[in-house]
């Protein structure tokens, strides 16, 4: 259903759970909204003013108040607990990672740091490029997210993933892509006059293509000067 509402095609493992919650709320909201609107419109037509009629003197009904208070509370609390487990899966205990990157936001680009041959971040052979994020398909990607200047937000619409990149903090995010292809990951937090148009390119590749690309990158790393000094 969501494709008809312009949702971007989902390519992550947890995206379907988020979309399912979206749809669940959609149907709850639709039922409530239509019921309220029907009641309202019916009352508005049926009880419109007519000469000689007097409204009925009704001050309220305690039983009704109790019913609609508890019913609303029950639905909302159950919804909160249902959402809770999905949230915990995504945010609190994700699976162990297969590949590890560091992503750093800066005005107005994303710096992607690949760990180099040793597979470890923070060592000399790390390679940093701007805006080009390549990941292997069906592998858990773990990212150390931070920012050099202001708050940016790392947003992959096709993954349903969003996390602010905050200077002074390293925040861990993870995703697992299920389909190969080219996608955009824009910055979604206002970060200055270049905010609009700040975006990176996500390339999800098969393991072989990815290995080949990574080998090329490590063999010919881009000049490190650019991006090393924020303003």
């Amino acid at each position, binding site marked *: 259903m969501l494709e008809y509402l312009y949702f971007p095609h989902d390519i992550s493992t947890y995206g379907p759970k988020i979309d399912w919650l979206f749809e669940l709320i959609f149907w709850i909201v639709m039922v409530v909204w239509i019921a309220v609107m029907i009641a309202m419109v019916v009352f508005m037509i049926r009880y419109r003013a007519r000469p000689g009629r007097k409204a009925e*003197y009704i001050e309220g009904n305690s039983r009704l108040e109790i019913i609609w208070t508890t019913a609303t509370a029950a639905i909302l609390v159950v919804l909160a607990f249902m959402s809770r487990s999905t949230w915990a899966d995504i945010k609190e205990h994700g699976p162990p990672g297969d590949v590890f990157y560091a992503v750093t936001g800066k005005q107005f680009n994303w710096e992607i740091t690949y760990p180099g041959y040793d597979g470890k971040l923070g060592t000399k052979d790390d390679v940093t490029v701007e805006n080009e994020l390549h990941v292997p398909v069906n592998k858990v990607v773990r990212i150390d997210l931070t920012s050099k200047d202001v708050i940016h937000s790392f947003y992959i619409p096709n993954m349903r993933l969003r996390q602010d990149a905050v200077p002074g903090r390293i925040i861990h995010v993870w995703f697992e892509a299920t389909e190969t292809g080219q996608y955009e990951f824009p910055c979604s937090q206002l970060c200055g006059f270049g905010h609009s148009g700040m975006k990176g390119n996500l390339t999800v590749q098969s393991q072989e293509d990815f290995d080949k690309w990574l080998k090329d990158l490590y063999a010919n790393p881009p000049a490190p000067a650019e991006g090393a000094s924020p303003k």
Partner: protein
Amino acid sequence: MSSTAAVAVHGVRAEHHELGFWRTYIFSEDHKMIGRQFLFMALFMMSIGGLMAMLMRWELAFPETQVPGFHWVPEPFMYDGAIPPNTYNAMFTMHATIMIFFVVMPILVGCFGNFLIPLMIGARDMAFPKLNMLSFWVGAVAGVILLSSFFVTGGPAAAGWTSYAPLSAVPIYTGVDWGQNLWCISIIVLGASSLMGSINYITTIINMRTRGMYFFRLPLVIWSLFITAILLLLALPVLTTAIALLLFDRLGGTHFFLPSGGGEPLLWQHLFWFFGHPEVYIMILPAMGIASDVIATFSRKPIFGYRAMAYAMIAIAFLSWIVWGHHMFVSGMDPVLGSSFMLTTMIIGVPSAIKTFNWLGTLYKGNIHYTAAMMNALAFVAMFVIGGLSGIWMACTPVDMYIHDTYFIVAHIHYVLFGGSLFGVFAGITYWYPKMFGRMMNEALGKIHFWITFVSFNCTFFPMHILGMAGHMRRIYNPQQYDFLKPIIPINEFISISAFVLGAAQFLLLANMIWSYFKGAEASENPWHANTLEWTTPSPPPHGNWPGPVPIVYRGPYEYSSPEVAEDFLPQSQLIEHSMDKAN
């Protein structure tokens, strides 16, 4: 207090006879004049905030093209009518700041609070008339400071109305220097104005109710303003503190929000939203109160569940302090904390639902008169339902991860703030205009304004939900820079055209207000056959509010279609012999 009240009762009219032009119209201490001053200031600011919105909508539909008729705007604000990115950022910052702090709050709290509280509780004026005057003029100074930022080098603030640090804390990050400083100073000054107003409202409502006006006989609009004043008193100092720290970071070399010196950017967000969420209810509660009064009056029925309505507002006021974290689900705040904020946020939906069901209950078996005021009040209910329901998606943390910072949020806030607060304002203006200005507004023009506004409002803001679902980020200047947003270009164009109609329609309201002031039919004392005390005095009320003694209250405010009398209304101050037992 008691001496003030005594003066007010006995001597006030004689004193006011000699007041000249300046003391009557400019530096007035009369709550009714101050209320009108707030209204005029807010309408003026609304025209500026609205213009910003129109320019933004042009940019979003037709990015990087020249806005027709704006070639005269000097560089670097615009380039031959084309809007550069930083100007766009300044526009949405100023649009939101103006609409929130200088339109919705001054009208709902400043105008209706001042005008209605003494008249509806049976007082001759506010508890502190001089403080009241000061509150308006301090607010006006804040407005001048904010507008002056359009004329400084670098332009006005461009970090969003939320002014997230570090973007707002370091001038080079936005390229805006004094614009942001003036924004900070303006809001600090406005905070002082709001504090003066809220202290005055609380004191007046507690101490100056007329005989028989018990708390549970107060009209719901007074209940809402009372609760709002308490929220203002407690929330505004938090914002003022946060902005003072921000100003120190900008000007004094401190690092409260800057990690380079050990500061914490998220501290700003916690402080801002600790103020910000009560603020949301400050802007909707008075509109709820207005809608309750208007709907009961024109349904000719008691409000359904009066006490439940009052308790629901009290519940909202308490819960509004423990939901601020739902603005920060993806900010880097501990996800466990996010879960608890999700729960509190879901629960704050309950009192709002109670209110909606009670409004429906009020319509049930009523005798509904479709005046322009009633239509606006009903639109308030219908639009508030949409705004409330769309909040459920945002409260759900995993879903919020996807729709946060998208147009889904923009749609939600406009359904609550325009569909909610502003339709409440329209209802309030059309309902109380006769009492404020002594003339009836033109009903036909009022209804035309309503229908055009209602339709174009929904055409403008409903499709924004779909933009949000497509992933359209807020605060971007050119959506066509993104491939994944290409399919929704036509929706953006449709929204913009609807927005232009919506903006233009507001001139009808303005025209109606001006035309009616000079040519409208003279208003009688009680044109709507309403029950509350403001309708027991001439329109507009004289100094001291009642020519004779202050009315005494015998019953609640919503005794419409009571079996005790033949008419379908029973004013609070009307004495019926056999009802005395019940009243006591």
